[in-house]
């Protein structure tokens, strides 16, 4: 096993990887940009290396700086986390060239699967079903417009290098396609350093189901069951669960086999995720392989009891896989809610700023993978994820109830989060019934506002806080020397 690894990421995922490293006795090196000098991954690492300017291209996306940091700190391997350089084949290749082990698949595999259009071609050749659409990337909006006319609207523009909803646009009519292409390409270029885009037919009400896979260097491949990730806003997942409410043992068997076949077809090594869209009639289509640790991996860890990061490190160090498919069993039900700094009453617009106070939920079956703390200034430069709250219970209903209770006791003050929105989604009849299609948010929660039934109590809390702060001011100014005054003694007469 490695003595020391560098984690080329920030926030909650860097911290989560460090936790496993600490358990395994592997020393950790963090990297950070100027605005992140007080970030939690810097505080918890054994060692931290400054990268410079906050701009991702100058810091977390800067391959030269990260390779240098790894070599100078004596790290043997680099874990890329998710996002940033996680699916960058050039980065993996540069690690390989510099004698550093990239904790992920080999660079040619990332390159092939990372180009979503090449991946589509590979799957077609190996008999894995794919969604109708383009099999090569395009940059000319006119050509894309012609292709869209041929496929028929609505269509979905996707970034060839994409993931995480960046550079993705649903286009309903011919009139919108040009601006959508430009905007998607520019978003893709800034997120992935590659502005290529392509088209797929847009499926109206699919479910998003993915399979976690683990593969070693010796041709052993297993899957760690499915995750359902259909509740999305702006094409970014916000609630994930496992098992899927619609999964049957027979369908799991078929989809699991397709996932393992997809991994084998691409020569996959390390942890990855094969994503599918499942249509109402039970037919499923290959969407893409995410060649990284997924944001939502904790729900799989909760139901299988398997630490995926530990296996990633073992596979990268050259150990054979110790898991066999028959032994992998799910126990109970797990749900994850992503907690972003965003305002659900303002179209989920990001809400960076200082977290003035924070209290994390806890209790049986609760896990919070958290990348922030009370007093932390959430920077505007990066993805606004604050933490991932996971609830595990013996069945779906109990997991929903456990998650609602945990969300209700989760306090993040000073910035906005979608916590009240998530509570209402989990309480909704549609979610409880398992009707979790990817259009869930737009069809059930389009103009959502929270029910504010505790408004009188909020005003009472305001009054109490006002009385307490007057007392604090008085005490601080030394007005009541010797004897601390109670609020009604110390109150001035400015209130009627």
């Amino acid at each position: 096993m490695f003595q020391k690894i560098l984690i080329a990421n920030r926030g909650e995922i860097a911290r989560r990887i460090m936790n496993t490293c600490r358990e395994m006795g592997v020393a950790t090196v963090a990297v950070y940009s100027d605005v992140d000098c007080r970030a939690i991954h810097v505080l918890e690492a054994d060692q931290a290396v400054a990268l410079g300017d906050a701009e991702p291209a100058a810091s977390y996306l800067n391959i030269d700086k990260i390779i240098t940091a790894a070599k100078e700190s004596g790290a043997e391997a680099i874990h890329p986390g998710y996002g940033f350089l996680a699916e960058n084949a050039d980065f993996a290749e540069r690690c390989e060239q510099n004698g550093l082990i990239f904790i992920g698949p080999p660079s040619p595999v990332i390159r092939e699967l990372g180009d979503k259009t090449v991946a589509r071609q590979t799957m077609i050749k190996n008999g894995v079903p794919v969604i109708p659409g383009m099999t090569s990337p395009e940059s000319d909006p006119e050509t894309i417009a012609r292709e869209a006319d041929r496929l028929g609207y609505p269509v979905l523009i996707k970034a060839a290098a994409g993931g995480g909803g960046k550079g993705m646009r649903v286009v309903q009519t011919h009139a919108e396609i040009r601006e959508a292409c430009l905007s998607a390409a520019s978003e893709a270029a800034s997120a992935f350093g590659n502005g290529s885009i392509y088209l797929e037919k847009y499926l109206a009400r699919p479910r998003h189901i993915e399979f976690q896979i683990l593969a070693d260097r010796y041709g052993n491949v297993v899957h760690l069951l499915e995750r359902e990730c259909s509740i999305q806003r702006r094409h970014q997942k916000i609630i994930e669960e496992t098992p899927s409410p619609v999964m049957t043992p027979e369908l799991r068997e078929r989809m699991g086999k397709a996932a393992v076949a997809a991994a084998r077809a691409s020569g996959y090594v390390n942890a990855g995720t094969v994503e599918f869209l499942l249509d109402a009639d039970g037919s499923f289509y290959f969407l893409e392989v995410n060649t990284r640790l997924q944001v939502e991996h904790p729900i799989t860890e909760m139901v299988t009891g398997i630490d995926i990061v530990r296996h990633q490190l073992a596979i990268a160090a050259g150990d054979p896989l110790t898991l066999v498919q028959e032994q992998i069993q799910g126990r109970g039900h797990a749900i994850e809610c992503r907690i972003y700094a965003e305002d659900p009453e303002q179209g989920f617009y990001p809400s960076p700023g200082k977290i003035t106070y924070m209290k994390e939920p806890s209790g049986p079956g609760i896990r919070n993978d958290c990348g922030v703390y009370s007093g932390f200034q959430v920077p505007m430069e990066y993805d606004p994820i604050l933490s991932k709250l996971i609830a595990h219970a013996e069945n779906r209903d109990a997991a929903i109830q456990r998650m609602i209770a945990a969300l209700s006791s989760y306090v993040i003050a000073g910035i906005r989060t979608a916590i009240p929105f998530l509570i209402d989604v989990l309480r909704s009849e549609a979610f409880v019934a398992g009707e979790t299609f990817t259009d869930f948010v737009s069809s059930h929660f389009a103009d959502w506002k929270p029910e504010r039934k505790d408004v009188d109590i909020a005003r009472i809390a305001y009054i109490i806080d006002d009385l307490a702060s007057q007392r604090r001011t008085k005490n601080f100014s030394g007005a009541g020397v010797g004897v601390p005054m109670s609020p009604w003694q110390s109150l001035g007469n400015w209130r009627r």
Partner: protein
Amino acid sequence: MNYRFKTGEETLTFNADPIKENQLKVFTGKKTLDVRYTVINDHHVHCVVDGVGINAFISGEKGERTILIRGVSYVVSDADLSAQTRKGARDLTKLPQVITPPMPSVVVRIMVAEGDSLQRGDGVIVLTAMKMETTLTAPFPGRVAGINVSVGEKVMPGKILVDIEKEAEDAPAK
């Protein structure tokens, strides 16, 4: 003592009478509530309202605070204290006609040029914040009178990014 709270355009008066240490009788205008409370720290108050215990978490500026209760946030504005902060906010709402970012952002693309005529809802400028792009659109039909920013610039809320001259509704015939 009385507290006047803003609720939209109206104000609502709560009367709070200290009974003894850490106990209040609060009249909300509709009902009287018995409140006992413990101040846990600067941000956390535990109160027992008519026998039911509730945690409330407090943040924000004096006069306008955000209170979190059971995961839901409530903005409470004190009409006697928030005059100054409200004034700023009101000035902005008086000018709903401006192109200004809702939060600190970076300009990605300017979709218009000086002199362009715009229809309501036309895209004007594309901003990025935390890696997501947002398009600000024209709030009314008009003509682009000035562009005050350039691509790549960091912009703050309140800054007018693009001036749009409103199309005069009763323009004199030329």
